């Protein structure tokens, strides 16, 4: 039997992760620090009947000197090198277009790859726009997770296709994240996200069938 409640929990969990990859404003910082984020994530995993493999809680990974904002900047902004923005294009060959002659095609590490083009296409087909700062990285994790959550609400079959094609790079992303120093919070969030996404959505949603 189909239980929509689980799907809703799953969607909520996905958008929670999306939230955690946005620049942490004061409220988000506060909610991470006071444990709200940890509690909600824990509840989310439990509600989806997923194993919770927490070693350290999120608030423990933050210190006064190395706060969430600082870790965000270190991990994603390029203010210090190396850094690894959660953008799909960077983790996949730039283009598979056969007559794409030139240089970039087979390489990883460049923005605006095929996946970005496709995201632009999908978003515009569904009538979505993205904020100015994400204009040329529509395959940013934040956008992809939000869009995935949206698709789950629309049509599970489509969501599954999206899951298969656009959320298959998190492992590579995690590998890059783990190479960085001073970003334990995002390494943990990414580890959990990878755990969550390593389980096929149909297994979660239909788990109680």
């Amino acid at each position, binding site marked *: 039997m189909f239980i929509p409640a689980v799907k809703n929990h799953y969607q909520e969990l996905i958008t929670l992760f999306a939230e955690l990859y946005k620049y942490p404003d004061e409220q988000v910082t506060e909610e991470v620090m006071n444990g709200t984020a940890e509690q909600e994530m824990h509840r989310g995993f439990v509600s989806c009947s997923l194993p919770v493999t927490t070693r350290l809680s999120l608030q423990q990974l933050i210190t006064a000197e190395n706060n969430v904002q600082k870790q965000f900047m270190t991990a994603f902004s390029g203010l210090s090198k190396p850094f690894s923005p959660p953008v799909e294009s960077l983790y996949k060959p730039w283009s598979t277009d056969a007559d*794409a*002659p*030139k*240089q*970039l*095609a*087979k*390489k990883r590490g460049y923005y605006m790859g095929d996946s970005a083009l496709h995201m632009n296409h999908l978003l515009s087909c569904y009538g979505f726009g993205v904020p100015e700062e994400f204009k040329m990285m529509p395959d940013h994790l934040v956008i992809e997770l939000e869009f995935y959550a949206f698709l789950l609400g629309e049509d599970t079959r489509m969501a599954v296709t999206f899951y298969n094609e656009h959320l298959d790079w998190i492992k590579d992303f995690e590998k890059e994240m783990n190479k960085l120093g001073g970003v334990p919070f995002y390494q943990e969030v990414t580890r959990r996200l990878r755990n969550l996404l390593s389980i096929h959505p149909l297994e979660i949603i239909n788990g109680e069938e």
Partner: protein
Amino acid sequence: MARYGLLIDASKCTGCHACSIACSMYNELEEEVTYNRLEFIERGKYPNAVMEIVPLQCMHCDNPPCATVCPTNATFKREDGIVSIDENKCIGCKYCMTACPYDARQLNESRIPEKCRWCPEMLEAGKQPACSSTCMNEVRLFGKLDDPDSEINKKMAQHEVSQLVTEKGTKPRIYYIKRK
């Protein structure tokens, strides 16, 4: 069938490397790989010293040692004279690399010993490949050796030309204009 050749006037090269970077852009090469390169030679004693620069790339030999040694015919000579590679047949033994007296082979990420392929699609369209079309000093001139009216034949008639490493019997298809 056309027979292609390349005439190089090395005396005009000023070492800007536009050829190699245009080539790697056109052929989607990894940054480490270049199909053409420049050899630098210093001659003489200060203040009467000079520098020579010789552009090098696959010579598309008429007796290509790389093709002779290839156990699976992955490297082969086309009718138009271009020495080409069928990547699927390559076992990666690198015999062609040790056999080439010009060091023209470059191993790519997939462990295929790649090399300059003279951009046949450009030659067939009557255009110069990227290395030549971007060269400000017009060092390279590709063309049909069997067409008496071709630019390359006219120019070869005007100059004395030489080839590299002829003593190994490779019969290279790149000709260098001899200058004093």
